């Protein structure tokens, strides 16, 4: 990983109607941005999920992806864990490497 900078990548899959507070946590944690993919499909703890629906954005799954420095990540991870504690939704955390660290705070 020569020349790349280590960062933490956090991916959260959650229902569309529950996504706004997660977005707020991400921005409050100091992340400079995130990617939001609505209408993701798959199979999870609560069974299968179809992909995008034509006239319903609230009841599909959304995947939120953010990358931020490890020192900022721990607070966000802890907060998302609190939020997901007794509700649907999953979080994946992984190390990642970026070429332009200034983009990610």
């Amino acid at each position, binding site marked *: 990983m020569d020349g790349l900078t280590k960062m933490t990548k956090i991916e959260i899959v959650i229902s569309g109607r529950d996504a706004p507070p997660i977005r707020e946590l991400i921005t409050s944690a100091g992340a400079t941005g995130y990617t939001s993919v609505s209408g993701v499909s798959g199979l999870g703890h609560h*069974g299968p999920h179809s992909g995008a*629906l034509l*006239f*319903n954005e609230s009841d599909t799954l959304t995947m939120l992806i953010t990358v931020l420095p490890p020192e900022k990540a721990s607070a966000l991870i802890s907060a998302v864990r609190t939020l997901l504690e007794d*509700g649907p939704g999953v979080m994946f955390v992984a190390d990642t490497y970026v070429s332009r660290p200034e983009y990610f705070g």
Partner: protein
Amino acid sequence: MSLEVRAAVARATRAVIPIWPLSSFIAVNPLGGRESEDFSVAAVMRPLSAFRADYSAGRITDVELAAVLMDRVPELDDAGRVTFDGQDWTAVDLLVADLVHGQQADPAPALPPAADRVDELVAKWVAAYLDPHPAWPMPSRELGLWAAWGAMARHDPQLPAKARRQLATLPASADEGLANALTKLGLNDGAAAKILKIEARRMPGWVGYIKWRAAQVGDIDLTSYLAVCLTLRWALGLPLPEPTTESKTELAAKPQTDLATDATRAATLAALLSPQPAASAALASIARILALHPPQDHAATWQSAYEEHYRRRLLASLPTTSKRVSDPKVQVVMCIDPRSEGMRRHLEVDAQIETLGFAGFFGVPIRFASYLARGSVDALPALLSPRHAVTETATDTVRAKLRTNALRVRDAFSAGVHASETAPPAPFALAETVGWFSGLATLVRTLSPSLAGAIDAAQLRTTPSLETEVTVATAFTLEERAAMAETGIRMMGLDRCAPLVILSGHGSTSANNLYQSALDCGACGGNPGAANARAGAAIFNDPDVRELLKKRGLPIPATTYFVAAEHNTVSDHIEILDPHLIPESHAAAVREFTAAQNTAADLLVFERAGLLPGASEQPLARLRARADDWAEVYPELGLVRNAALIVGPRELTRGVDLERRVFMHSYRPECDPDGTALETIMTAPLVVAQWINHQYYFSTVDKHLWGAGTKTIHNAIGSIGVLAGQTGDLKIGLPLQSVAVGDLDLHEAMRLTVVIEAPLERVWEIISRNLVLRQLFDNHWVMLTARNDPNSDWQRYSTSGWISDPLAVEPDTVEPLSLKPHDVESTEGDK
């Protein structure tokens, strides 16, 4: 800490359903956050005494109770029989007798939490913050609720001096403020989470509205709200909030049946059924059977039987043989709203008129601004976010300028009067100068609503008319427009086109009605549907769109023209929109339709008068003048008595009087080869219909907790919502006058019965891959009956598979559901 606090707030308020403002009222299921639980656990039902009264009146029968019990208590199959006093009783007979004659009392009614000092103070400050008085806005409002409140609270004379001193030094941010309050109250993480949840449930109206506003406007959030609540609780030295009725229900274990209770029930039942004392062995057998259906399950069984009665009657009323109109001269596409059913039925008296049902936004989700208007409305379902802004362009710029000038003069006059009403000394001068004219206008509107309406109409006529086109072609790409048209065709099964196709949205008019938008189109975001109908017609008439549709195998004949219209649900007139765009070739057909529609409108107004309080003897003109009568609390009855959604071709229902109770979405499987259209219907119109149905359900079952109570004591908070009286929580749900007259319920509190004619395998797959549908159907928030095609038997959906439903087609032997007009008249004085 800040992030942890925000996460704790988000977690505590996850189940809170956002509440839309009155200006764009959206019906919601107030318990929508609990759809992951079974309906019988999460929801409330009518009292047992009400169900027993329905039983006595024949509205629920033994047959339906037995059918529901067999469904809900599978152990009954092997429960055996009991003989006593020479009579043989099956297990299900005993359980029916226990329901009907048993001594089970109603549980204590759910009560809203008693308002305490904190609620009063918070409601006052939140109202001041969200609805600033034009002359005296809340200082520092631009800093947000927490900072603005913090700056003012230390001077609040309603607080004791000690509390004001404690509030003098508060943390700067709401996050820190909430963390500080939790610490001062001595709450650790676990206790804090519980208290946040309880506090958020104390005023569900304000909390639900703030959740909506945080997402849509962003000038307030629930962290600030809870920070204010708990900081006040600490400063005033008040005890921590008690769980509300709902949270007590959650926290307490469900009562368990025990042998003693069952034995007592058995003895009571045996005594009721026979004057001879039952043998102990018989009593033990009865007790064993009664234990299969404990008292806490009775309300759910009654509720299901109440719905089963309607469902069977509905299915039995559908024609067994169907014939499609062979060569329609007009097709009228109307919203799925139950009020359309009456209009469709009366229009179809003309055998050459075919009607279809489609979500009233016609598949065109837009943010719409009228010509040169300052604001805009989100004319789309609440399930979507606005992405496309549409407005109007004038086709005659000279007339447009004349109209704009006239409206500006009128606006300037109105603004001047309004400013004079609100500026501190001006109202006195205003009363002296124009007060006489206002008094006269008030007198006219009070004594003669019809004349007031005529004056309003004349005023409109003197304003130069405006001929415009909607800018749908610039808001959407050609590909997007063609995709919307294709979606519409496939969803409503428009496999042929008459020469004239009318897309009719709907809206309502009423005077002095804070809940007017609740009578408008839910699919258009609580707005009238004219803009969406115009956009839809423009798309279908677009030659480029038609060219693309032709390439996709969906040709629209060149002789077909789409006309936009709007159904006024008070007058029942259908107004033709954009008449200047109608080609001469279709003008005669439009005139002919309008004549037929006028007849249908008169018939429908008279039909609706049968249920409208105080209306049965009123002449046609007076019935329509309700829209202009500012003392009229029942201009129309909206979607009252809504009970079912039918998805299928019109042949399935044509010719049947569905009593304006059924949402109807047209659908033909042959137009939907991959099932996408059905999936869209089931995940959008069905979901919205369910919201509306549950709003009516809960507003009826508890008119004060989940409904808004009587209109007569409502005070508006701007366009946000209403209070009952002068302070307290924002009211949620529908007012009493939307669901009842005095003590008589106009609405029948039933869960939505969904009926679909489509391949069962397809329906099953769609439910299986959509969590929202699995929760609704598997947890019994909605009931589903379906059949493959007209030649197949009806099947009921269950989590274990389709269940053959022979009861559904038995001939109806019960009294009609309709309320008799005299029942309504007798309680009119209560309004």
